[in-house]
């Protein structure tokens, strides 16, 4: 069990607002790490910082033994650290297959190999029947799946999934959980941001809680659920009704 991704003392300010304050977090190879926190806690900022979309003001991000916090997003993706977006970004004018093909080309220059890889990924995520559809015509669940398929086609080492469950029906959500677990079992380390508490409890091996830009707690899902600081962040302070 080795650390594959490490955030060391990362701080990010937007003007006077400190979006992330001194966050240190390890991601262990082969795990599913859940990142939870109320709205505006800084979860997506953390992803932006890891994926290179915005550089940290202080601190470092180390991936696979090398610092990546000053690299361009495409370089980071090329090294095997790939993200999805909370607001999905399909290549709307392209078909589902072409969307995945673009990603498959990252490790293959030959169009035939890349096409074969893209097809097998579509099969794997259950989108094969939609391969020739325009991607903007997919349902939200379909587009989330497509987003996942694209990242998978790049043969990532670590996947950062930003709210892949949000907006899905319970059935669709359960299918997505199964899929993400299968991806991890295939050898990919996964970091998920999630709002849906029940889902993330079932999905994650460990959970990190962020609140007001600070890391509140890291631990096993069962411990996190009982942690009074976490309960407070989510539900407010414990509250006693006057005795009868």
């Amino acid at each position, binding site marked *: 069990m080795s650390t594959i991704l490490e955030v060391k003392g990362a701080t990010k300010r937007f003007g006077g607002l400190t979006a992330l304050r001194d966050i240190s977090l390890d991601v262990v190879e082969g795990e599913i790490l859940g990142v939870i926190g109320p709205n505006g806690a800084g979860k997506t900022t953390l992803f932006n910082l890891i994926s290179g979309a915005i550089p940290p003001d202080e601190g470092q991000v180390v991936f696979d033994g090398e610092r990546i916090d000053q690299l361009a997003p495409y370089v980071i993706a090329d090294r095997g650290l790939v993200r999805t977006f909370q607001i999905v970004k399909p*290549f709307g004018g392209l078909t589902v297959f072409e969307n995945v093909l673009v990603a498959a*080309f990252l490790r293959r220059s030959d169009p035939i190999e890349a096409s074969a890889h893209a097809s097998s990924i579509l099969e794997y995520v259950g989108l094969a029947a939609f391969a020739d559809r325009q991607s903007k015509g997919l349902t939200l669940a379909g587009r989330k799946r497509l987003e996942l398929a694209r990242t998978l086609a790049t043969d990532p080492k670590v996947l950062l999934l930003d709210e892949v469950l949000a907006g899905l029906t319970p059935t669709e959500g359960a299918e997505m959980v199964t899929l993400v677990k299968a991806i991890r079992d295939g050898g990919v380390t996964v970091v998920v941001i999630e709002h849906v508490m029940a889902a993330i409890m079932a999905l994650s091996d460990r959970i990190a809680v962020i609140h007001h830009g600070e890391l509140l707690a890291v631990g096993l899902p069962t411990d996190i659920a009982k942690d009074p600081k976490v309960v407070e962040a989510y539900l407010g302070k414990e509250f006693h009704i006057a005795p009868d």
Partner: protein
Amino acid sequence: MIRLRQLVAASSKDLQILLAVVAILALVPLGVSRFTLSVATAALIFALAGIGWNVLSGFAGQFSFGHAAYFGLGAYTVAVTFTRYSISPWVGLVLGGLVAAIFGLLAGWISFRFGLKGAYFALATFAFAELLRLTFNNFDYVGASIGITIPLAGGDSWSSLQFEDTPEIRYFVALALVALGILAVIAVKRSRIGSRMLAVREDEEAAASLGINPLRAKLFAISISGFITAVAGGYYAMFLMFVDSDLVFGPFISVAILLRPIVGGVGTIWGPVVGAAVLSILGEVTRSLVRDPPSILQAIEGVNGLDQVIFGVILVVVIIRAPDGVLGWFRRFRKRDGV
């Protein structure tokens, strides 16, 4: 070899269409006047220029309003190397393409480096074309405002690329260049870099998140695009036997180049060719309508510029009715009928 065969098989539909279109267009010289044939040749030249434009603006999504820059560089390279150094225009075509590709890399690097997009990028391309037009207009080495007249070479017309007595061969060479241009586009579209151009067009941030360097994809697009358009410009110089800076770098050339793929279908393989055909036929029909109108429209006979007005009105209607081009309109039409 096996790979090549597989690739050909995968693109077989596109290649079949190419063969069919070339076969049909090869019949044009039979039974048309010399004048019509030269209109058709010019249409092919601008189709090729449009094929180049389409790589940058249609596939990579970076709208160029200044492709006259590449067209003119191609034209001048051929004219200068032929008249000054007696270099074969065939070599000149390739040299012109390279000059334009290098210019494209430079112009693209300056523009994309600073994140120019959309209308701002279009304006920058326009500025680059104007810069070249004014420079060449004052540059004695290339004939300044007088331009360059290409002399008749005599001798073998194949090596001098001059077909003054055999206009049908001049037409066939243009057709062959268009076919090569289409082949190049088919190859680019199937390749890794072509796929990356499309991704960058659709969403740069998402493309970068999948390991694509957007700057690199755009620079590839602009150099391929410039090369193809410059070849068209080079052949145009041999077609007119004359270049000057207004004629090949002028804004109307940029418009003429982008109009064809826009009318035909931006970002499609065949859009520029379809658009060139539609515009040429439309232009000729309106011209002959004004020259020799049916008796009911006798009043418009010979009215100066009226053909241009009619042409413009029809063009506006076409673009309103078919904003994604003639090919897009056909596609929607077929979909609606459930074919």
